[in-house]
């Protein structure tokens, strides 16, 4: 591929295109050729009657996504799988090592540590987030004047995400002047040094993740308001108390939303990167060394270090595939288990018809 790019660049220079445009044009020109070819072939097929106009339109509409998928997702995935069997530092020629990278990963203590940190974070923070956001949504599901103000207040923190959130919480968890230790000190408790303490760094990140439950809370609230009142009334007539009604009416009705949140939450948690990266950089503990150095060694962070700090491209690809398989297995597990506790409404077609009728009116 390098030859093609070089050839295009040479041609561009020959006709006097400024060099700054080389990078983008060497991508755009082949892409434009592929698009043009595809649409011309499609038009000819449709004209000659080999394809109905609808079919041609479908492929024409879908093609941009297919192109993006092949170039930026499917192609790179295949390449990455191949690369995971090589040793490559971007400079010298790649050497084939077979399953060497996977064997190394299995014996690498940092991989073990990274898996432990990431899984612990996912398994603790996701259920906590679900419980907390559901509890808040239940609290907020009352008809009181000004309830919208509460909703905004709880939602607001979820807008402070990414780097800004980490910057804020580095300050909130500051051992000396921070908010948390200040409050603890008020009660006479000598707070830990949080991010600097290997035992408290991960709990601090979990607490930090709980601050942004507002986003989920809003979805649960919409789900709660969708629970038909007649179900609650019927349960009440049958003598069900508060707890029974929550357990047997509200929870089953919400279970698809909870399920969706658990799946997306788990996938997101396993991909945690920014927190670990910035906190480590800010504390200057260096990567992988120092006492609290590995306390926040998330799997993606270790992958990133291998790829872009140490330039172990093959090893990083192997790590990426390990992560991929792990996420797939975990998702599969949650999906398999879901039939025991997720309740779908398809058993009650009558209500869906009603919705459709109202909507089309």
């Amino acid at each position, binding site marked *: 591929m390098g030859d093609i*790019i070089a050839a295009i660049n040479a041609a561009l220079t020959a006709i006097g295109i400024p060099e700054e445009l080389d*990078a*983008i044009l*060497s*991508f755009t020109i082949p892409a434009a050729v592929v698009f043009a070819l595809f649409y011309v072939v499609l038009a000819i097929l449709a004209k000659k009657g080999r394809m109905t106009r*609808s079919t041609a*339109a479908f492929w024409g*509409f*879908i093609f941009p*996504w297919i192109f*993006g*998928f092949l170039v*930026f*997702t499917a*192609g*790179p*995935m295949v390449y*990455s799988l191949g690369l995971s069997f090589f040793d490559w530092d*971007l400079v010298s020629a790649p050497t084939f090592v077979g399953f060497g990278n996977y064997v190394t990963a299995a014996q690498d203590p940092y991989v073990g540590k990274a898996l432990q940190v990431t899984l612990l974070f996912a398994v603790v923070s996701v259920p906590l987030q679900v419980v907390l956001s559901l509890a*808040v949504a239940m*609290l907020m599901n*009352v008809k*009181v004047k000004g309830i919208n103000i*509460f909703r*905004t*207040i*709880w939602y*607001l923190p979820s*807008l*402070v995400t990414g*780097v*800004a959130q*980490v*910057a*804020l919480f*580095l*300050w*909130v968890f500051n051992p000396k*002047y921070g*908010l948390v230790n200040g409050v603890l000190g*008020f009660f006479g408790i000598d707070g830990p040094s949080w991010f600097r303490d290997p035992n408290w760094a991960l709990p601090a990140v979990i607490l930090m993740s709980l601050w942004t439950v507002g986003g989920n809370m809003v979805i649960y609230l919409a*789900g709660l*308001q*969708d629970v*038909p*009142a007649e179900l609650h*009334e019927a349960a009440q007539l049958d003598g069900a108390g508060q707890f029974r009604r929550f357990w047997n009416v509200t929870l089953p009705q919400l279970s698809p939303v909870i399920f969706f949140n658990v799946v997306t939450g788990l996938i997101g948690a*396993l991909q945690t*990167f*920014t927190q670990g990266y910035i906190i480590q950089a*800010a504390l200057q503990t260096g990567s992988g060394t120092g006492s609290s150095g590995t306390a926040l060694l998330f799997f993606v962070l270790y*992958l990133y270090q291998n*790829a872009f700090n140490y330039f172990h*491209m093959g090893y990083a690809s192997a790590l*990426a595939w390990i992560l*991929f398989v792990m996420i797939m297995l975990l998702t599969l597990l949650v999906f398999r288990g879901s039939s025991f506790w997720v309740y779908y409404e398809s058993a009650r077609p009558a209500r869906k018809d*009603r*919705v*459709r009728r*109202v909507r089309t009116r």
Partner: protein
Amino acid sequence: MSELAEIKTAGVGAIAPIRPARRRRRRSSTEPSRLRVSVQVILLIAGSFVFIYPFLWMISTSLRTPAGIASSGIGLWPVQWAFENFVQALTAFPFWSYLGSTLLTTLIPVVTMVVMSSVAGFAFARIPIGRAGSILFGVVLATMLLPSEVTLVPQFILFRQFNMIDTLYPIILPTLFGGPFFIFLFRQFYLRLPLSLTDAALLDGAGWFRIWFSIYLPLSRPVIVAAAVIQFMSSWNNFIGPSIYLHSDTWKTLPLALAGFTSTHGTDTGLLMAASIVVVFPCLLIFFLAQRHIVGGLSFTGSK
């Protein structure tokens, strides 16, 4: 409350003619007691206080001098007001250049993601194609579960081949062709629109492009807003992409600059908080502008 929830409630009310007479008597029993509502509200107020406090504290800290930070502790009121933190946050580093790159890597993806996902979602929802369509849609759903980290290394090698390191292209190019989640969102929305819309237009001789552009696209405003806001938030706060590809100051984005700031100016907390607020501010603004649509646009995704 979401639009769909309103429709559902309306639907339930419409088919229950006997209800009103009985309702009054029963309502008193299912509706929570006064005491319970008061307890709920008190808990809410307490919780809100805990949740909003770090946010207010962030604003308060950003208005303090270093001496003020040391002395006011966890209180909210700045001992000495210091607005110069904000002035410094805007001038101490090439803020406008960073803002420019951030806007480029945010606004282009917002537009292309929405338009391309809408086209694809429309094709999946409305153009009859048979098996091939459902297989392809299965692929779309599968890519939704795919961790983007798998393509991190190969994409880096790809863009390196094209000499695109230290440019914004690697961050923008992958977003030009639509994304699986938004395709899914648009498809679900279009599936709920009546089929007669396309039938009538086809009878009138409109092509598929016309049908999408003049009928379906304008009708999908709630999804457009929701998708645009979600994409804005994720592009604006994107950190891993810029941290891989951008090294020189020319093209740095705001989150990347802020991350550098936390390690170099980590001790100047007032300035750091001011810079954080500056970075977060557009997200807050977008939220308040689009607040009504966010939940309404998401509740029909079919997660239920």
